[in-house]
């Protein structure tokens, strides 16, 4: 059905590397963009930590580097607010969504389902070329007067709606909203492509219940994106109207800002929160589910064991995906929303703990009686299991509304989402890079450097984010420029300094993967086998460097599920999906 696409394999430079229709190239383009955005987002986090670790530190050097933000060599509060706002925005949308979903989703879906390309290759190209302007607009917003947006990544109005409320609420906030609309458009095109491709273009014999869990995750993510992101787009456009056309969707009467009484009336700031979190919560799972899929596939490959409870893993992801649409109000327990809604959202939120626990236990059972090979992707996958447990358990505190009263908007929340969402997303991306790199570039990454990267990242990740639980319990609020303003937070400064030191090591150690990624493209050891990990999924049946169309001859047929490791009847310890059954005994 997709044979039509395999004829534009060898075009010129532009059609091959820039306006490519090939899902593999588009996936790589996304990953390159993600790496660049990750440098920016990571650098912003380093500056945030600089201020929190050493509040009010004076250095002439900074004044030269950031003439407005650190004019006297000391960071200003408005610069600080802009830093964490843009750190969150860039990381959540342009790194953790674009990387595992748009990057690896595009790269892997056709390869794992035995298709020659995505269902709509042109739309796929358009999707990248819509995301890129979105990213550029977000980056340009740093350069405009007033600086980039400074209302948090959640952009709550009135702060994000009123130009005089904070310097970043000038042109920077408008660009933020416009960039976000581009992003949503790109993501919606991608989601549509994912769903249609997976439903229609699976190889012969590849039923839904034989899909690798990575592809299952991308399928669910595609649906979540299609249903939730339009709410953000609509919300963002209404906010642009409030900002520029004088409407009052989010703005009530009686706002006295900058010595003037504003003429708005009739709107409600809570409307934005509902629209934003209606996207915002599924978004968390959009980031996480692919990582959980990668984890399952990588665990299975390197334990040389079938994934335990395949069906329950699929049902758990479907349950998480469904529940993600009815829990958004747990971000709004303190917002003034009706307490009855708070009751409802606590019940739905804690339901998510059940499928999450099922996944964890299934992973542990996969490790039981395994023969674990500690490759770098496996180390990161095991890291995800650990982070997922740590971050998942703290969700029980925050989901229970009465406990959330004390912990809401404190560093406990920051710790929670950096373990569960950011941790899974980031480690998932690392695991995926190390695992699929031989397929992507026909070369291996440097093994020693990869392992060093894992160890620095894993240990300092705990070092940075675990102590944030203590800060939150002790009552330290999020988003404050200097906790030492409060007497009761002063004793916490050593914790903040410790976190900052760990963060600098964590940040610096990411240089290793950047260098390794690009260096290995040209200098890495060449891959000698089509299937270097002895894995079962279809992408490993393509040639070492697959062309456009993926399989040179016919598409593979599928005879089994993807997790036949150590099958008692098999000669080898793995039986790929494309291997026909033995003549006599069909399975």
């Amino acid at each position: 059905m997709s044979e039509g696409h395999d004829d534009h394999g060898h075009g010129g430079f532009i059609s091959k590397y820039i306006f490519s229709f090939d899902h593999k190239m588009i996936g790589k383009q996304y990953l390159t963009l993600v790496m660049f955005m990750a440098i920016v987002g990571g650098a912003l986090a380093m500056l945030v930590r600089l201020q929190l670790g050493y509040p009010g530190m004076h250095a002439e050097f900074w004044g030269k580097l950031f003439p407005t933000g650190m004019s006297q060599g000391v960071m200003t509060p408005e610069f600080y607010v802009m830093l964490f706002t843009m750190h969150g925005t860039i990381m959540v949308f342009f790194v953790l969504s674009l990387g595992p979903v748009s990057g690896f989703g595009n790269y892997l879906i056709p390869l794992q389902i035995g298709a020659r390309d995505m269902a709509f290759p042109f739309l796929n190209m358009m999707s990248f070329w819509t995301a890129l302007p979105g990213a550029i607009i977000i980056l340009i917003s740093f350069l405009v007067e007033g600086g980039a947006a400074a209302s948090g990544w959640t952009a709550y109005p009135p702060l994000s709606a009123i130009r005089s409320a904070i310097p970043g609420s000038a042109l920077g906030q408008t660009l933020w909203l416009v960039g976000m609309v581009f992003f949503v458009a790109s993501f919606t095109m991608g989601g549509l492509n994912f769903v249609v491709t997976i439903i229609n273009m699976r190889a012969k014999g590849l039923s839904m219940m034989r899909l690798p869990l990575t592809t299952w995750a991308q399928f669910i993510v595609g649906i979540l994106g299609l249903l939730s992101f339009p709410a953000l787009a609509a919300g963002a456009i209404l906010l642009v109207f409030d900002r520029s056309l004088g409407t009052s969707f989010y703005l009530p009467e009686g706002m006295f800002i900058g010595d003037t009484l504003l003429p708005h009336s009739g709107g409600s700031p809570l409307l934005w929160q509902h629209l934003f979190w209606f996207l915002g919560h599924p978004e968390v799972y959009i980031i996480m589910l692919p990582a959980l899929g990668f984890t399952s596939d990588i665990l299975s490959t390197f334990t040389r064991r079938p994934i335990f409870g395949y069906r329950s893993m699929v049902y758990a992801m479907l349950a998480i995906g469904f529940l993600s649409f009815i829990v958004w109000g747990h971000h709004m327990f303190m917002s003034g929303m009706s307490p009855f809604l708070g009751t409802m959202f606590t019940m739905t939120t804690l339901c998510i703990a059940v499928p999450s626990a099922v996944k964890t236990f299934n992973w542990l059972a996969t490790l039981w009686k395994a023969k674990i090979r500690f490759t770098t992707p496996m180390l990161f996958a095991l890291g995800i299991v650990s982070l997922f447990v740590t971050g998942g358990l703290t969700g029980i505190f925050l989901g229970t509304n009465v406990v959330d009263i004390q912990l809401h908007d404190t560093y406990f929340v920051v710790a929670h989402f950096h373990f569960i969402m950011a941790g899974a997303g980031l480690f998932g991306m690392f695991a995926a890079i190390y695992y699929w790199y031989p397929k992507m570039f026909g070369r291996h990454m440097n093994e020693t450097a990869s392992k060093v990267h894992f160890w620095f990242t894993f240990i300092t990740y705990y070092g940075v984010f675990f102590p944030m639980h203590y800060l939150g319990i002790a009552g330290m609020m999020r988003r404050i420029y200097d906790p030492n303003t409060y007497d009761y937070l002063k004793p916490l400064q050593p914790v903040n300094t410790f976190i900052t030191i760990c963060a600098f090591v964590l940040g610096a150690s990411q240089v290793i993967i950047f260098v390794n990624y690009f260096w290995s493209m040209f200098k890495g050891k060449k891959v000698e086998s089509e299937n270097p990990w002895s894995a079962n999924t279809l992408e490993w049946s393509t040639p070492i460097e697959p062309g456009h169309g993926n399989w040179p001859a016919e598409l593979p047929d599928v005879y089994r599920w993807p997790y036949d490791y150590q099958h008692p009847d098999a000669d080898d310890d793995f039986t790929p999906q494309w291997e026909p059954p033995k003549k006599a005994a069909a399975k």
Partner: protein
Amino acid sequence: MAENTEANRDTKHGVALAVTLWAITVVSVAYFFKYDVPELASDRGAQDSIYYVILGITGFAYVAVQFVLGLYIWKYRHRDGAEGSYWHDSHTMEIAWTVGTTVVLVPIVAWGLMLWQDVKAAPPEGDILVIEAVGAQFQWDMRYPGPDGEFGTWQPELYSLDNYLGLDPDDQAGQDDIHLTNQMVIPVDEPVRIMLRSRDVQHAFFLPNFRVKQDAVPGMQTSVWFTPTKIGEYEIACAELCGLGHYRMRAFLSVRSQADYQTWLAEQSAAN
């Protein structure tokens, strides 16, 4: 199968990972004994009780799962000739951990929701102390009803530089209202209700020692009530990003004995 030297070489990373996981678990749990919630000064001790119970349950799960994860990583690291297993499905076990997790969670949710009910219920009937707190970039303006026990009315359109609370100047009830900035004084052991509003962006009224937090939203009236139980001086914080001065939107809460409070109130009214 031929000996896989790479797999053998990598096992040292597995051993190291197991030990690292155990070490992280021990150290991270130990510090929970050092860092605790701020000293309690209100009648909301039940919120602390459920917090500690959840901390105990999740703490146990955290230690158990990280320990088993480390153990399996250690025990099942690659070894030449080790026996493998194709076992990958157990209906019984799937049911067990689904039901098991549910059974642990249901009482937590039920208890939590009962406490939520108590906290969010209407304040006690009768003559209870009501104070208004108005959030604004970057201060908290407090208003007491004064000797007549009644607040003067306010209108959103009356906000101005001279009338930062939007009070109706013709309302007699407002003439004796007491105004304070960044300061609140309340009597111990008496329920107090705080009516919250904002005159610009969103703020959140956070009393770390009292287990109280509530957003102040422009265009909306929100409120909280609680009973202070300890005399002392405490801090009031803003917990919702409200602009560049969010971090310094700090105020003071003084809990005094009934007698001291009455003296203070009389002084304030006299000064008015």
